[in-house]
C-alpha cells in the first residue's frame, strides 16, 4: 500500500527582494506519513517546520521536490483546491482567534468546508451536529461568535472545522502553543481521541515537546530546514542519536525543578542564519563532536535501526554516551505522570 503522504526532496527557498540572496528555508526534506499515523516535526523557530506544512497544504509552492498524496502528485495543475482533493487534507492553526472568521457563528464556521464539497443544507447541519458532539460543543455554542469563546473553545472549533470533512490528513501547526496548560491537555486529549475514532493521520508541527512526545508515532527533528533525525517517538525520546536532538530534548524544562539535568552535551551559540548556508553539516559550528570533516561534507542520512534515520557522522560516538538515556527516561516518566491527568 502506498503511503498517505509522501514528500520527496522538498526544497523551499525564499528570495530576499533586492539582495539577490535566498533564505534556504527547507533543504531536501523527505518524509512519509501512513494512514492514521502521527508524524511530528520538531525544531526551533526558523527550522522550516511550518514551511513544510504550508507546502503540503499548497499554501506556498515548493521550489523543488515532489509531494504525493494518496499516490498522486500534488502541485502545479493539481492544487489543494482540486475537486478530488477537497476536504481530504485539512489544517489547524496555532492562533485560534485568528483562524476563525469573526463574523461567522461557530455553526457557520464548522459548516463552511462542507459548502465547498457541494453538500446541501440539511446534510451540512447534520454533519455539524455530529462534529459538535465529537467536540463536546453544545447546540447553543454554535450560535456564538469567536470573540465570545475562550481560546480553548476557539481551538476546539478550529479542530472541528478540520474534521468536519472527514479528512485523511490534518496538518496541525502548533495547535497547543497558544493555550494555557489546562486547555492544552484537553486539546491533546481531543486530538488523540479523534484520531482513534476517525483514523485521521496527523502532521504535527510543534516545538512543544511534551505534546509531541504524547501524541506522535514518529518524530522528525528539523534543523535549518534539514531533517537531522527521524525515529519512532519512544525511541527518539529515549535514545536520540543526533547531537542536535539531544540538545533540543535537553532544553525541555522538566516539570519538576528538583530533577537535576545532566547536560552532557550542550550546544553553543545561536541557530545560524539560513541565508547562504555553508557546506557541511549545518550544526558543525555548534556541535561538540564536530571535526574537520563535519565542516566540509554534509553527513548522509543513514539508517541506524528500525525506522530510525540519523544524519550525523558521529552517531556511534553519541550512542556511546550512556548518561543521556537516564535523562530522557526521567523526562518520559515525568511527562507521562503529568499528562496522565488529561488522558484518563
Amino acid at each position: 500500500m502506498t503511503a498517505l503522504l509522501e514528500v520527496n526532496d522538498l526544497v523551499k527557498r525564499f528570495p530576499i527582494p533586492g539582495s539577490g540572496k535566498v533564505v534556504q528555508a527547507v533543504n531536501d526534506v523527505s518524509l512519509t506519513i501512513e494512514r492514521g499515523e502521527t508524524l511530528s516535526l520538531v525544531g526551533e523557530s526558523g527550522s522550516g517546520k511550518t514551511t513544510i506544512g504550508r507546502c503540503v497544504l499548497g499554501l506556498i509552492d515548493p521550489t523543488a521536490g515532489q509531494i504525493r498524496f494518496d499516490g498522486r502528485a500534488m502541485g502545479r495543475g493539481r492544487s489543494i483546491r482540486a475537486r478530488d482533493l477537497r476536504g481530504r487534507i485539512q489544517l489547524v492553526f496555532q492562533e485560534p482567534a485568528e483562524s476563525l472568521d469573526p463574523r461567522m457563528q461557530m455553526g457557520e464556521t464548522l459548516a463552511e468546508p462542507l459548502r465547498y464539497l457541494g453538500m446541501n443544507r440539511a446534510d451540512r447541519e447534520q454533519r455539524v451536529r455530529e462534529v459538535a458532539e465529537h467536540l463536546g460543543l453544545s447546540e447553543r455554542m454554535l450560535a456564538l461568535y469567536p470573540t465570545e469563546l475562550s481560546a480553548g473553545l476557539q481551538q476546539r472549533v478550529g479542530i472541528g472545522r478540520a474534521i468536519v470533512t472527514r479528512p485523511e490528513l490534518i496538518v496541525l501547526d502548533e495547535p497547543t502553543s497558544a493555550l494555557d496548560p489546562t486547555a492544552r491537555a484537553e486539546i491533546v486529549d481531543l486530538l488523540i481521541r479523534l484520531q482513534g475514532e476517525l483514523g485521521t493521520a496527523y502532521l504535527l508541527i510543534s516545538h512543544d515537546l511534551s505534546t509531541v512526545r504524547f501524541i506522535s508515532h514518529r518524530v522528525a527533528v528539523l534543523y535549518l530546514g534539514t531533517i537531522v533525525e527521524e525515529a519512532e517517538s519512544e525511541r527518539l525520546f529515549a535514545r536520540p542519536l543526533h547531537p542536535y536532538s539531544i540538545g533540543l530534548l535537553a532544553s525541555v524544562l522538566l516539570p519538576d525543578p528538583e530533577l537535576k539535568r545532566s547536560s552532557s552535551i550542550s550546544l553553543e551559540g545561536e541557530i545560524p542564519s539560513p541565508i547562504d548556508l555553508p557546506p557541511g553539516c549545518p550544526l558543525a559550528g555548534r556541535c561538540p563532536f564536530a571535526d574537520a570533516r563535519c565542516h566540509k561534507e554534509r553527513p548522509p542520512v543513514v539508517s541506524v535501526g528500525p525506522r530510525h534515520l540519523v544524519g550525523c557522522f558521529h552517531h556511534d560516538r553519541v550512542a556511546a554516551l550512556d548518561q543521556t538515556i537516564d535523562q530522557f527516561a526521567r523526562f518520559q516518566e515525568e511527562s507521562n505522570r503529568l499528562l496522565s491527568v488529561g488522558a484518563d
Partner: protein
Amino acid sequence: MSTAVASRGPAGVGAADPAGSRWLRRLRFFAAVLRQRPTFAIGYAIVAVVIVTALLAPWIVPYGPMVADPTVYLLPPGRGHLLGTDGTGMDILSRVLYAPRVDLAIAGIGTLVSASIGSCIGAIVGYYEGQRSWRRAVSASVMRSADVLQAFPVFVFAIALVAVFGQSVRSIVVAIAFVNAPIYLRLMRTQVLSIRRLRYVEAAYVAGASDLSILARHVIPNAMAPVLAQLSVNIGWAVLLTAGLSFVGAGVVAPTPEWGSMIAMGFQNVVTGQWWPSVFPGIALGVTVFGFALVGASVEVLADPVRRRILSGSLG
C-alpha cells in the same frame, strides 16, 4: 442594559432565542451605546432630522420653495417668515427645508455608486496583488490610475467633469462618484491586503473555496467596517461638494432649493447687512456634514466586532 450585553458572553444564550428577542437585544445594546457615547446620539439625531425633513418637506414648509413674492423681498427673520426672505422674496425657511431633497439625493447616490465601484475594484486588486502573473500588472496599473485621479484637487476635478458632461444633476452625481471612487479603492485594497493573509482565509482556501467565495464570504464582509464608516463621512463631504459646485455655479441651477446655490444667491446681500439669505442655509449645511461625520465615527466602531466588543465591555 448591561445584562443584555453580558448575556452574550461565553456562557450566554444563542440559537435558542427567537428572532424577536435578538432584535430587541440589539436595540437595547444600541441604546446603551448611545448613552455611553452621547456624540454618536447627536450624529444620529442630526441625520435623522435631515432625512425626515427631506421626506416630509412638502407637508411642513409654510410657503412654496420656489414661489417668489417680490413684495416681501429681504424681510428679516420674524413672524410670517421665520428665517426671513431672500432678494427675490422667496421664503428662506421653506427653501432650507426643501434643500436636503436635492443635496442628499445627489450626495447619497453619488457616494453609493463610488463606494460600490471603488470597493469592488479595490477588493479584487488587493486580493490578487503580489501574485506572479498578469494580474500583478493589472493591479499596478489600476493603482497608478487611482493615483492620477487623486492627484487632481477634488473640487477642480469635479468642475471639469461637470463642464465636460454638461450642467445637470446627473453629471454632478457622476462627478461625485468619480472623485470618490479612488478613496474606496484604496481603503478596500489595504483592508484586503491584510485580511487575505489571515488564517481563516487560508482555511477556506485549503477547504477548496474559489477565489470568488473567499472574497464574498470572508474578505469583503471583514473589510467592510471602514468602508461603511467612510460612506457616512463621505455623504457629508459629498453634500458639501454638491453645495460647493452649486455655489460656483457649476451645480444645481437656481431657483431649485439647494443650500449652495442659496448661499451664492444671498452673499451679495451680506455686504449690505442682510445676512440671513446666506447664513441659514450655511448653518444647515454645516450641521448636516457634521452629523454624517459623527455617524461615520460610530459606524466604524459598531461595524468592527473587536471594537464593538471592547465598547460593550466598557458598558458592563
